[in-house]
């Protein structure tokens, strides 16, 4: 019996360890391939050059335009998805009839399952022309419409997982607040959201991850033009789009041009690492306060 328990614990730990092997594998692939890249291109150029043109004759290897594009689309997507997703979660949890909740939640989850090609063309052929009527200076390809559509795609990640977290808040807290004469709005924001903050933060992290990793929407609607800018109206390119284009493209394997994707990949890895540590820190602060 005891041995069986030990065995099971070891087995579970082993499963959890698979994620470590995955990380090691990813780091191995990224580092071993980008090693050659950084032997040719100095890190200082990589970080400070304001152009990213590895595939042009006049090569520049400044990663910042891609980082800027990634940040820009992600921020736009989250700026749409977080308020909308969280509002939906709260609405379904506190206001809507349970029957509505039961059917709306899975319906919205379908949004996460629609192939991203569809979103991409939707952004290009519907959203962009529409936005151009509001902002005439908007280019035909832009971070704005790609980011917004991406935001729609990740709404269900935030709404569903946050709703689960809100649902799990003990009923007694809810009753305490209502009993004091609080409105559902106040109950939600002063009691439920703080109490469910751990789960809500997790949902946002997953949503950001998905936004950062999304390629097709950006590839179709944002223009694939590395641009060191914070202007959402102009075309940009993101790190992941670049990686996908090159890794399934005509570039010869083993060349410096090909190795750029690993340099870009490792940048993204560090980027998400920093992001995660920040959110970890936030989460810890919140949890100290509420547990």
């Amino acid at each position, binding site marked *: 019996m005891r041995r069986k328990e030990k065995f099971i614990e070891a087995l579970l730990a082993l499963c959890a360890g698979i994620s470590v092997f995955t990380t090691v594998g990813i780091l191995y692939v990224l580092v071993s391939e980008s090693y050659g890249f950084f032997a040719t291109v100095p890190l200082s150029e990589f970080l400070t050059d304001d152009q990213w043109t590895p595939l042009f004759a*006049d090569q520049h290897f400044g990663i910042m335009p891609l980082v800027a594009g990634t940040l820009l689309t992600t921020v736009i997507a989250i700026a749409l998805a977080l308020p909308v997703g969280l509002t939906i979660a709260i609405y379904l949890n506190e206001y809507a009839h349970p029957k509505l909740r039961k059917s709306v939640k899975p319906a919205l989850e379908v949004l996460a399952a629609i192939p991203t090609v569809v979103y991409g063309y939707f952004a290009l*052929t519907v959203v962009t022309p529409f936005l151009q009527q509001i902002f005439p200076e908007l280019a*035909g*390809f832009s971070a704005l419409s790609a980011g917004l559509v991406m935001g729609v795609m990740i709404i269900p990640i935030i709404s569903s997982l946050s709703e689960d977290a809100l649902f799990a808040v003990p009923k007694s807290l809810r009753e305490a607040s209502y009993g004091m004469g609080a409105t559902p709005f106040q109950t939600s924001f002063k009691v439920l959201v703080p109490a469910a903050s751990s789960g809500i933060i997790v949902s946002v992290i997953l949503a950001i991850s998905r936004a950062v990793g999304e390629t097709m929407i950006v590839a179709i609607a944002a223009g694939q033009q590395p641009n060191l800018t914070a202007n959402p109206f102009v075309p940009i390119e993101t790190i992941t789009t670049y990686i996908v284009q090159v*890794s399934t493209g*005509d*570039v*010869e394997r083993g060349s410096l*041009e090909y190795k750029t994707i690993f340099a870009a990949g490792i940048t993204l890895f560090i980027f998400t690492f920093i992001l995660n540590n920040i959110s970890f820190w936030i989460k810890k602060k919140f949890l100290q306060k509420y547990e």
Partner: protein
Amino acid sequence: DKKGGPPSISIDGSSTVFPVSEAVAEEFMAVNPNVRVTVGESGTGGGFSKFSNGKIDINDASRPIKSKEDSACKANNIAYESFMVAYDGMAIVVHPSNTWCNDITVEELKRLWEPSARDSIMTWNQIRSDWPVEQIRLFGPGTQSGTFDYFTEAIVGTAKECRTDYTASEDDNVLVQGVAADKNAFGYFGLAYYNNNKDKIKAVAVINPKSATPVLPSIETVKNKSYSPLSRPLFIYVTDLALERQEVRDFIQFYIDNCAKLSESVGYVSLSVEELSIEEAKLAKFLEAHPVKTAQ
């Protein structure tokens, strides 16, 4: 590496060549139903990487093999032969409401696309003075594609020499959308995409450097070489290893015999009769040099 099962042929590589190989595979299997032909599109580079490891029999290539890829083949003792199978024309296009831009010279194209044009050639009138003083917006294929390499080589003079401030996409349909939605657009992409979207975009005639006459892109003008210099050849590469198998020999023969007809059915331009006979001869020699392995 494939033991047992039905005889099979694996093709991978460029997504540009894919429709041709797919068409050939389909027709080939119609007459040889027991053979399985698969076609992937992991890109010319990805394909060559598998090709040089002997993982695939045929690589679709939208550009000639590079020296690194060649030495990888050598390192693995793989000999190969390349065959031209079709031409892909490149159409220069503008928005249908564009009334001024009807033809363009190679020099003008160069002035517009060369690296020094970045941040300086920004309006139409800078190309031709009687064109309007309006911003020009550029669209073109992704930088890692064979089309981009070929266009820059043919127009600017060196492959990949190009201004960087234009909107790129790997997907020509996206470029069609981009040009169709912007009245100041100027772009180039595969001829087939123009042919299928004539209602949305307008082609610009390219002035043939030799004859000095404007020529609009079409299958005919590409085929008779009057539309110049904007058409590029598409290739397939075959390993010697694969020729040990009878089904591959049959397949390549079938490919060269039928590529003229089939490439046009998918929107490309076929080789001329002379070019075809050169490829046929090359194939005969290649087959002879690598006889089929007699089964033990």
